[in-house]
């Protein structure tokens, strides 16, 4: 029993080492950035050295001084603490968008590919109409109708991304549907749901994961943009997009650090996610042969 477990562990760790070697320095750097941002999103408010929401106008725009590594923002709040606390809304928002649109996109794509005919036509043309709405525009429209805030923006973006997700996955699901093993399972009497859940979706799994990763980057940029416009996360809640908007005056006043620091956080995470997503796409493609 113990030997079996030990053998399994070495195989797993060997695979881990091989994966690290295959990803190279860019992959390792990306993994580090993503882990750090996730850690900050989970524990940010606890890690923050100072109260991220406590203003002190006498310290407004003050530069970095002992203990306050990134200085103070326009209201005299500690910038580093706000970055750490802001990781939460900046990371969870895109995560929600990805979960919503990838789940709905997978369901629609697999349904369309499985049933073909009328269902496929209805789903595909419904999605074609959604192509008419750019993500940011739909988010602004949602804010006008339902009021500004992260939930409306996140739902709007999930809907706007749906056709892009579903189109790629529908193609993959259709290829899977035509594989001989699917026909064999049908002959054996397996139900459509069981075949889809146990075989089709797991087999297009790598593509779903790659798609979700790339989508996270887009969602992060678009959600930050909506928050920058004042229609997403509402101040005084800390958020990277909001921080750029509220500290933009500092650029002309000679205090660019607060806005730049928030911008760099967004760019670092998006680059990392893009690098990782591209690798995952290559792997998914290679696996399919």
């Amino acid at each position, binding site marked *: 029993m113990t030997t079996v477990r030990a053998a399994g562990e070495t195989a797993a760790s060997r695979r881990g080492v091989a994966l690290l070697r295959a990803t190279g320095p860019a992959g390792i750097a990306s993994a580090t950035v993503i882990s750090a941002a996730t850690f900050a999103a989970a524990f940010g408010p606890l890690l923050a050295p100072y109260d991220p929401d406590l203003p002190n106008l006498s310290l407004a725009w003050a530069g970095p001084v002992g203990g306050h590594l990134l200085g103070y923002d326009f209201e005299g709040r500690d910038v580093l603490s706000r970055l750490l606390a802001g990781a939460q809304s900046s990371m969870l928002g895109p995560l929600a968008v990805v979960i919503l649109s990838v789940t709905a996109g997978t369901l629609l794509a697999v349904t369309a590919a499985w049933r073909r005919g009328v269902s496929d036509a209805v789903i595909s043309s419904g999605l074609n109409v959604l192509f008419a*709405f750019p993500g940011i525009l739909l988010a602004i429209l949602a804010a006008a109708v339902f009021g500004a805030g992260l939930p409306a923006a996140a739902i709007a973006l999930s809907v706007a991304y749906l056709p892009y997700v579903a189109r790629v996955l529908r193609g993959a699901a259709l290829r899977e549907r035509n594989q001989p093993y699917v026909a064999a399972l049908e002959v054996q009497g397996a139900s459509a749901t069981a075949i889809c859940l146990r075989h089709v979706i797991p087999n297009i799994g790598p593509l779903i994961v790659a798609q979700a990763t790339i989508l996270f980057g887009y969602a992060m940029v678009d959600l930050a943009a909506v928050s*920058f416009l004042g229609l997403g996360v509402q101040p005084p809640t800390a958020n990277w997009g909001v921080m750029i908007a509220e500290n933009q005056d500092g650029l*002309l006043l000679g205090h660019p650090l607060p806005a730049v620091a928030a911008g760099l956080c967004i760019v670092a995470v998006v680059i990392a996610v893009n690098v990782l997503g591209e690798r995952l796409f290559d792997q998914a493609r290679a696996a399919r042969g």
Partner: protein
Amino acid sequence: MRRWRFVARRLVVLVASLLVASLVIFAALYLAPGTPLAALSGGQPLPPASVQVLEQRYHLNQSFPAQYWYWLENALHGNLGVSITLRENVSTLIASRIWTTAGLVLYASLIIVVLGIGLGVVSGLRPGPFDGGVLVVTAVCAAIPAFVAAIALIIVFAVKLGWFPALGNGTGFLDNVRHFTLPAVSLATASLAIVARVTRASVRQEADREHVQTAVSRGIPARQVIRRHILRNAAVPITTITGITTASLIAVAAVVEVAFSLNGLGAYLVQAAETKDIAVVQGISLLLVTAFVVVNLLTDLICAVLDPRLALTDSPR
């Protein structure tokens, strides 16, 4: 013949998706919490006379489809209603801002086409250090959102170097160009990088193909090989990605207009969304969606001209 059928089918799809999109935009009135009247008045109490005007304008006492039809008919005649905050015709308000947005998007598209495709072609044709540099730089640039590019450009070129103004539209053509340069560059940054990467990949792929190597070995001049055998074949993916990214600028322009305090449609749309000026939001959304869909259609049509096989193999989806 089949080519015209292709164009006709695309036009039908265009009209259908615009109809549905306009229905969604109109239905915003009903999706909003409260009555359509409350949505139209921005939630503020109105004198009975104005209520009556709104009821008549939007035919609120008739059925939903009838209301939609009247609204659409008005919109097609350029009558988009009245702004509740500025008490002016939405079409007039749009007309005074449309050139800012159009100029910004065109300027950015020009930058993308010249620099993005140019960089992509050069680095696709010449593997080496330049190509490697382009790959790294474009990977970074593709991840820079327009508003982050905006703050970086303001810091360097407006505050440090003082070459370009940081805010505002400017007056007169040359001054406009000066004022629009930083906004256009920040709008173009991410798309430029994506266009360059896709261009590079498709040029490289075509350059490695056997017929190109045969042409080179037969002693056909490089210039001719590049033009006839590499670029001609790579043209379709390059056009597609340029078209898609250019179309997406139409919405992202809002972010850049706000960052640089430009008086354009996007900035006005954001302001209207904040004040719940629903007639303005509907009017601008309708216009931007139309522009977005039309640019995408044009991209499809240009691709079909570049590669007639696309029109022949196109099947109704």
